[in-house]
């Protein structure tokens, strides 16, 4: 690698970051090695592998993996690579299997990755081939753990355990699950993939960027207001308008939401109030919640209103609307964003309908919100190659955050969440030891 620690350190200043972090393929390679292999990266939800033999395929950083439920009912995360010639063993996005069989030479693996058989095994006699040697298996990633069914993998055996890593962001995951009268969520159908022509960090940084909605999303706010105002007097506000309208909120609205940052680059916005606060009640939901939790606990659960919670680098969650978005980096200028939708078990179907409607209006490639973000990232990715300046600014409300225990609080339109991400970024990238 061509970057020394000193050179890496020089890329990040307190108030600005060098454009190379978004454009240089060598930096991207270093990130995959030092950041994405050491952080806990979201893999999938246990409800996707509800039964023995169920599996899904995805990536952790650039590593193709399979998450499967093995014969002992344990969730495994395996490198999706045949121990023989290295072919990808499983190509379906999801399915169910008794064993994994490489279609090239027929090596078969148990659901926990252990090599079970190779055809015409006599050829390996008198070699040092050993069917029990893990190097011939579909190997397990170094560490797997879950929080309320959300499965994360870490490719490094060292570092904090999952709960220590998540810190206060675990409260967002807990809150999303507690919003189910049964305390559980499950994945609702296939994800919505959206290909972005930008560096993964642009997407992640934008999640807690509250200075852009009133500009980048102004048009859809105007369009929605115009149509709602043209409705006959006394018409109820359509649920779509309830969802879109806050995107045209004022700077003061987003400032008051607040931005809270914490170790490992994580952050969330909102808390007591967010863009999700003014949704109408859905019939039957409160009754179901109060029957499960009682009135006081129900109020507690529903009063937590976080906007985007970012578990750096891969996982972002909206507890109040039950949506998870996952960044899957592909190249320095290419990132797949997956949106996953969650059903609150025991809640009326209309709750899921709202989740789906939200995602279709805000996150879909065919929405009127996502494409404006998509385009802004693409503009940055293209124009950062300009030598007019080599720096990207991040100084809004610099030095004006307040500590609150392990969490730092800043105005919602602060760049503190970005600065916090780059502090974590430096911690990962400057650590050369493998």
């Amino acid at each position, binding site marked *: 690698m061509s970057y020394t620690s000193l050179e890496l350190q020089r890329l990040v200043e307190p108030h600005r970051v060098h454009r190379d972090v978004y454009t240089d393929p060598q930096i991207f390679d270093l990130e995959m090695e030092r950041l994405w292999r050491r952080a806990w990266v979201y893999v999938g939800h246990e409800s996707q592998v509800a039964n023995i033999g169920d599996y899904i395929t995805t990536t952790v950083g650039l590593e193709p993996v399979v998450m499967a439920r093995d014969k002992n009912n344990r969730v495994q995360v395996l490198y999706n690579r045949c121990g023989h010639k290295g072919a990808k063993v499983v190509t379906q996005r999801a399915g169910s299997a008794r064993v994994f069989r490489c279609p090239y030479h027929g090596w078969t693996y148990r659901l926990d990755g252990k090599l079970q058989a190779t055809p015409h095994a006599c050829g390996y006699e008198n070699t040092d081939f050993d069917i029990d040697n893990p190097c011939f298996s579909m190997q397990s990633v170094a560490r797997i753990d879950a929080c309320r069914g959300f499965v994360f993998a870490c490719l490094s055996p060292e570092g904090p355990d999952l709960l220590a890593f998540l810190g206060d962001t675990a409260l967002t995951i807990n809150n999303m699950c507690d919003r189910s009268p049964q305390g559980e969520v499950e994945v*609702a*159908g*296939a*994800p*919505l*993939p*959206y*290909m*972005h*022509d930008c560096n993964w960090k642009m997407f992640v940084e934008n999640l807690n960027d509250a200075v852009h909605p009133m*500009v*980048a999303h*102004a*048009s*859809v706010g*105007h*369009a*929605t207001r*115009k*149509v709602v105002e*043209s*409705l006959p007097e006394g018409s109820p506000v*359509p649920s*779509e308008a309830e969802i*879109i309208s806050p995107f045209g909120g004022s700077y003061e609205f987003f400032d008051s939401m607040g931005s809270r940052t914490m170790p490992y680059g994580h952050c969330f916005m909102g808390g007591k109030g967010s863009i999700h606060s003014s949704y109408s009640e859905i019939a039957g939901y409160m009754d179901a919640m109060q029957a499960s939790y009682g009135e006081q606990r129900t109020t507690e659960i529903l009063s937590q209103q976080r906007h985007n919670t970012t578990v750096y680098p891969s996982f972002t969650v909206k507890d109040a609307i039950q949506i998870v978005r996952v960044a899957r980096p592909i190249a320095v200028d290419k990132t*797949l964003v997956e*949106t996953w*939708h969650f059903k609150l078990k025991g809640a009326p*179907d209309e709750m*899921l*309908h709202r989740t*789906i409607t939200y*995602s*279709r*209006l805000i996150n*879909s*490639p*065919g*929405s*009127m919100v*996502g*494409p*404006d973000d*998509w*385009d*802004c990232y*693409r*503009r940055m990715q293209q124009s950062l190659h300009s030598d007019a300046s080599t720096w990207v600014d991040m100084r809004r409300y610099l030095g004006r955050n307040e500590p609150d225990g392990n969490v730092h609080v800043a105005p919602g339109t602060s760049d503190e969440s970005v600065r916090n991400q780059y502090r974590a970024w430096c911690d990962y990238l400057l650590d050369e030891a493998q």
Partner: protein
Amino acid sequence: MTMDEQFSVVDLSAIEAFIWSEAELLDQGNLRQWRDLFAEDGKYWLPASWQQQDPLNHISLMYEDKMMMAIRVENFGHRLAPSMQYPLRCSHVLGNFRVLTDSATMITIKSNFQAIVYYQEQTLFAGTYTHQLRRLDNGYEIVEKRVDLINCDADHRSILIYL
């Protein structure tokens, strides 16, 4: 040949012409007139999964009623939308029309389409249309237009216009 079948055969060319003109409005980027082709209870559906059954409990790329279409008409080409500051042109080719169901009031007709969309780069979309049309005295109105892309579940980039 029964009267019903005769009716379908006679009707078909008029229905094809209606669907061609609908596609032409998209080619012209004339979403306002395009929206007028829909019934008051009309829907436009672009599923995100193969043979998707349900637009409410499963995500779609688009699923819009006339109110959402009205918002999209206002937003389309809006000077403040970053995504709208580029030329956007499309060219639709339709064929293989076949009638799925037919009655005195409603007709469901399926066709194959290819839509080439030029937006920053050129993209080829292909699949089937399923139009549910309501017969009117002077023509038809669209109760539902369902667009099944052969790559509905692929990693799409932005889709800025109805297909």
